[in-house]
């Protein structure tokens, strides 16, 4: 073999020849006797390094978004109680006194003792999202909240939290709504949404995988939802299922990108013991913020059930909306969370 002869299988190729002008013995770029020379190895190595870096970057981004973390996050408990044969599934009470309406409706459902046992820890979730007065109907009525706290206390709860993640400044919302004062006076611990109040949990939803939620929802034995009935610019209405947005930390814009599915994701995650829907005053327009009393209608109604889809369907009717026109009700039904045909439940209407 001469220096310029192409190597044959089994030939030993001098290293100096491999370095010649970037050309290999066979005249191609980078190929040595075994098909790969240093330049080729360098390229493979560089590409692999870039790929590995990309994987690391991707995993970093993924982890920052709360996906694919190694640690196991807690899931929320199922806070529901067993159904009682023959018991009402929904109670609707109308009357001028909000507290009396709550008492009558809960009594009709079998009393608070059916839902809360002695020594249990209970979290109550009103809507305290807005820097608004009770008359402006953007938040749950404080008299309703106070009465629920009293009933839960009378049932023997060892701890009662009242909490919400406000949209406006929490200090203003908790004070202006009248809920902080009323709940404390009734014996509850009021938890404002300060940073240390949140725990990360596994949502395992279609859109939401993990979420930072207020700690009472992780620690409580029982959960009672007390939404107010309002028109809502994006979802059409905000009532029982939508009220769970208020246990989440973080930027709200993300949740609104597919609002109906994210409402159902949250409603699937939290299985409340009872929902007491406040329709003492409802907001017919410019929700969820409201402000003008011209948009408020006095309804003097309380509806109670453990079926949030049924309650939302009932509330939609109060707003003059067809339940099936609201995407989250349809999706909630598909997800098996309840029925929009609330009249098919065993229900009772009182007062009026």
């Amino acid at each position: 073999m001469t220096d310029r002869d192409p190597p044959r299988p089994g030939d030993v190729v001098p290293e100096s020849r491999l370095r010649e002008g970037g050309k290999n013995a066979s005249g191609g770029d980078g190929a040595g006797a075994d098909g790969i020379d240093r330049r080729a190895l360098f390229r493979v190595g560089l590409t692999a390094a870039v790929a590995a870096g990309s994987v690391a970057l991707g995993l970093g981004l993924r982890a920052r978004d709360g996906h694919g973390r190694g640690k196991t996050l807690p899931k929320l408990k199922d806070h529901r109680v067993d159904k009682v044969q023959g018991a009402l599934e929904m109670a609707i009470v109308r009357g001028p006194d909000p507290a009396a309406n709550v008492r009558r409706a809960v009594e009709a459902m079998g009393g608070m003792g059916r839902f809360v046992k002695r020594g249990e820890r209970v979290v109550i979730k009103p809507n305290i999202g807005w820097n608004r007065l009770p008359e402006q109907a953007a938040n749950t009525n404080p008299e309703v909240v106070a009465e629920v706290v009293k009933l839960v206390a009378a049932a023997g709860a060892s701890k009662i939290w009242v909490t919400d993640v406000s949209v406006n400044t929490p200090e203003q919302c908790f004070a202006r709504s009248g809920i902080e004062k009323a709940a404390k006076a009734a014996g509850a611990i009021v938890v404002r949404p300060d940073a240390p109040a949140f725990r990360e949990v596994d949502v395992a939803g279609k859109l939401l995988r993990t979420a930072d939620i207020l700690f009472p929802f992780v620690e409580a034995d029982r959960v009672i939802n007390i939404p107010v009935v309002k028109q809502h610019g994006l979802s059409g209405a905000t009532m029982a299922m939508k009220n769970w947005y208020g246990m989440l930390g973080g930027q709200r814009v993300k949740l609104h990108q597919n609002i109906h599915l994210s409402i159902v994701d949250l409603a699937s995650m939290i299985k409340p013991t009872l929902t007491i829907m406040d329709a003492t005053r409802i907001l017919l327009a410019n929700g969820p913020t409201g402000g003008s009393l011209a948009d408020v209608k006095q309804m003097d109604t309380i509806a109670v059930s453990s079926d949030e889809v049924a309650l939302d369907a009932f509330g939609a009717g109060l707003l003059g909306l067809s339940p099936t026109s609201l995407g989250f009700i349809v999706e909630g039904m598909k997800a098996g969370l309840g029925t929009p045909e609330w009249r098919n439940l065993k229900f009772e209407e009182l007062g009026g």
Partner: protein
Amino acid sequence: MRILLFAVLAVIPPSLIGTLVWQGRKTPPTEHAPAAARPSGQEADATLRALFEAPPAGVKLKEKVALYDEKGLFDYIDGAAPIFIDRHFRKLAASEMATPEGSDLVCDVYDMATPENAQAIFDKEKSTTAKFVDGWPEAIAGPMSFVFHHTRYYAKLTAFDAKAEAALPVVARSLKEKMR
């Protein structure tokens, strides 16, 4: 064989980054307003803030004025935000004020980029039972609220008691005079 290997390795990084970024992020909000009609950002922000520099007549500022952009708007008005964004919302200045007697009111001024957009959101939000202010057809006085639009601004004032409600028309007119 080498070419295939290089091709596969070269495709991995952009695909991986693209997929992972796509998983966690959605398309940013669409820009609706014609660019030519929109005031420039810094100048418009300064003009918006200037509405509150000297507090409107009869009230004092309780807190620093807060500005919200398209993304932040959800953190202030939640699900009402898309109605504004669809009508070319640019920025919101929100301020809590108080009368000398200590009655609180909230003043939200939305920069809607153009007078047409401001009128559009006014028309969208006005109640069917709205009571227009005498001599000011672009203003509505509802119980506990006062709403108006002027130039490219849409203003919503909310009171929390009767004294604050009485101050709303004065504050509204004071703001209107500063809106250019």
